[in-house]
């Protein structure tokens, strides 16, 4: 069985895959290449999206129910970036989004628009293989408590120790890294989530599907 955790980054995808007892870390430009041979792939990309912003009291938001739930678990609101709506996803100019919809999207999320489009397109073909995950939610469940920020030295060490404990065969000294280490950590923790899904131990956050039938559920 081949399971995989994938983190979207502006230039492509960082992946951690497990085949037998072997774990490999690398990067690819196309998610399709990984999906073609994997039994399960968990990606850190919002796949199922709201059609229009929803109202919570007086506030309009693009956050889905699953994002709100994850935000409560993780504790740090900045860890959950508001996803775009389906309408916003069509936009090719960052500044137009705020003007047109009255709600801004963080630039970090806008840079991931091509990855979101790619994941959504592939979902139809790989609906049994592709799942949405959230690295920080997985880390929180892994530890059973809130973690320090991933931007601090304590936070990095904490995540590294957790991964070494739960992904038995990973040794960071062996990992040749040509990309950011926090992307590698995220891919690895999503790999752990993928294993949990296979074993039936994963937790699902959120409910329902978007207008195109893609579930708005985050696995951790």
């Amino acid at each position, binding site marked *: 069985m*081949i399971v995989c955790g994938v983190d979207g980054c502006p230039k492509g995808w960082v992946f951690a895959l497990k*085949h037998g007892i072997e774990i*490999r870390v690398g990067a690819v430009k196309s998610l*399709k*290449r*990984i999906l*073609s*041979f*994997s*039994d399960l792939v968990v990606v850190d990309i919002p796949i199922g999206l709201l059609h229009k912003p929803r109202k919570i009291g007086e506030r309009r938001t693009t956050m889905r129910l699953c994002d709100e739930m994850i935000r409560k678990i993780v504790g740090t609101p900045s860890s959950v970036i508001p996803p775009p709506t389906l309408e916003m996803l069509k936009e090719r100019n960052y500044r137009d989004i705020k003007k047109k919809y009255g709600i801004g999207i963080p630039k970090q999320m806008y840079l991931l628009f091509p990855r979101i489009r790619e994941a959504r397109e592939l979902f139809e*073909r790989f609906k049994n293989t592709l799942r949405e995950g959230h690295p920080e939610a997985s880390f929180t469940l892994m530890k059973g408590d809130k973690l320090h920020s991933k931007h601090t030295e304590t936070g990095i060490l904490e995540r590294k120790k957790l991964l070494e404990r739960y992904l038995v065969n990973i040794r960071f000294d062996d990992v040749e890294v040509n990309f950011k280490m926090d992307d590698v950590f995220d891919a690895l923790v999503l790999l752990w989530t993928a294993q949990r899904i296979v074993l039936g131990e994963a937790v699902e956050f959120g409910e329902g599907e978007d207008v195109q039938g893609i579930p708005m559920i985050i696995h951790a």
Partner: protein
Amino acid sequence: MLEVVLLIFEPIKVIVAIILSLILFLIAYRKKRRRPKDPQEVKRVIVSYFKRKNWEYRELSHGIFMVKKNMRKILFYVDFKMNFNILKEILYEAFLNNVKDVRILSLERTEDVLEATRRINSNVNVHRTKVILKKLEEFERVLR
């Protein structure tokens, strides 16, 4: 009286001899036809063909093998049986070894195989060839 008996039995002997030789020929012909029905032999032919042309040969997992010359790499899988799991292994090896050209030679053409082939076709260049068993030499033509 003896001459008469010989006259009757001589043609019968000839006919019996003809029938026997025909049976022996048919048995030998059937054996010859059956002989190549062995994936290992098919594999040997492919490997020797590429070795003659100075390609490097590497054995991978699940009976998958790779031939390599300079920047060019071809991944092969030869067997009677083929299923979705094997195809995934082939694609995984193609991914790990950065191979774009995959050639699968199998006899069975089940729905599973066709579906898996469709699924992988967009990722790598798959040449799926139905093997002509009675003519092993056909491989050289097929492979080109």
